[in-house]
């Protein structure tokens, strides 16, 4: 990440030096203030959903969910702590339901719970990240509404290919993570 970031920054700034050096500061300022605006939106979303997730957790519902999904989690993530498996269960189910706003905070907490502080990326962490990178959504609502807005005859005919591609990608992700992060070797219990 570090190398990539430095590369992106230096090469882009180099382009600016030879192209239009006057606009650099403006571009950077707009970008950062746009990001802060985005963060305000995120802030609202996270406060709302983290609040609701806390109720899920305190009412014991997340525990139930984790128990239901235990075989799946065990298969994908191996042996993870009880806390982490609860967050993973919430993250995965929110993803599938298309509640992207709810899945991210749960996923972030799962990531934190999975981190053992050793400074290396373990298999469960890589798995969590990979699964969240191939959108598992059942109904891609944004895309369908965008299509019907533009007068598509059959705006939902993309659902089928989207689901096929998502499932194949997920399968591929799972296989590759399993392959490249062979034995996690961590026992969190």
């Amino acid at each position: 990440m570090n190398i990539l970031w430095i590369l992106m920054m230096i090469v882009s700034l180099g382009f600016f030096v030879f192209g239009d050096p006057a606009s650099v500061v403006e571009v950077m300022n707009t970008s950062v203030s746009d990001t802060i605006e985005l963060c305000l939106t995120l802030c609202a979303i996270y406060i709302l959903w983290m609040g609701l997730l806390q109720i899920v957790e305190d009412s014991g519902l997340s525990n139930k969910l984790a128990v239901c999904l235990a075989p799946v989690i065990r298969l994908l993530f191996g042996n993870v702590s009880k806390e982490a498996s609860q967050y993973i269960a919430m993250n995965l189910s929110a993803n599938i339901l298309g509640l992207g706003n709810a899945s991210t905070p749960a996923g972030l907490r799962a990531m934190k719970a999975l981190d053992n502080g050793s400074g290396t990326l373990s298999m469960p962490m890589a798995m969590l990240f990979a699964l969240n990178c191939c959108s598992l959504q059942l109904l891609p609502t944004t895309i369908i509404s965008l299509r019907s807005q533009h007068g598509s005859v059959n705006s939902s005919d993309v659902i089928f290919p989207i689901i096929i591609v998502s499932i194949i990608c997920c399968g591929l992700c799972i296989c590759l993570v399993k392959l490249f992060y062979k034995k996690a070797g961590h026992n969190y219990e």
Partner: protein
Amino acid sequence: MSNYIIPVLIIVLLVYAVYKKTNCYQSFTKGAKEGLKLVYDILPYIVAILLAVALMRSSGLSDVCIKAVMPVFQFLGVPTELCEFVMLRPFTGSGSLGLLDDIINSFGADSYISRCACVIMGSSETVFFVSALYFSQTKAKNLGKAISLVLLVSFVGVLLSCLLCRFL
């Protein structure tokens, strides 16, 4: 349908919580506080990644990259019109959604190009954004392998999308 999911879920949750004698109000505020902290934690990471993306786009570097990979895309069966979209997808969600809108506008909602773009959009994620978010929560250093792995899978997804849209 999706309009009903969220309110119904929340109602079910609250009823269940009351049944389990949870102090909902206290739980909600406790979680909300955590949410505030979470944003505080991830803000610097998002600023860093989006700053780099903004610089790349406005400096013209991304155009150069797109031109460079165009022949490869063509060879693999990805329409050239989608190059920019495919390249931007891993970096910015709102940016690629805007591009998708442009594509649908200029090619028509039911054209092959638009359908392809929609499938790519629906089956992929903003990998760099997600990685900045998720890895802000860990101290892990060796992230290259995971990120490149996911990018590879996303690219396979793009190829698959273009292939599937030809037949379906």
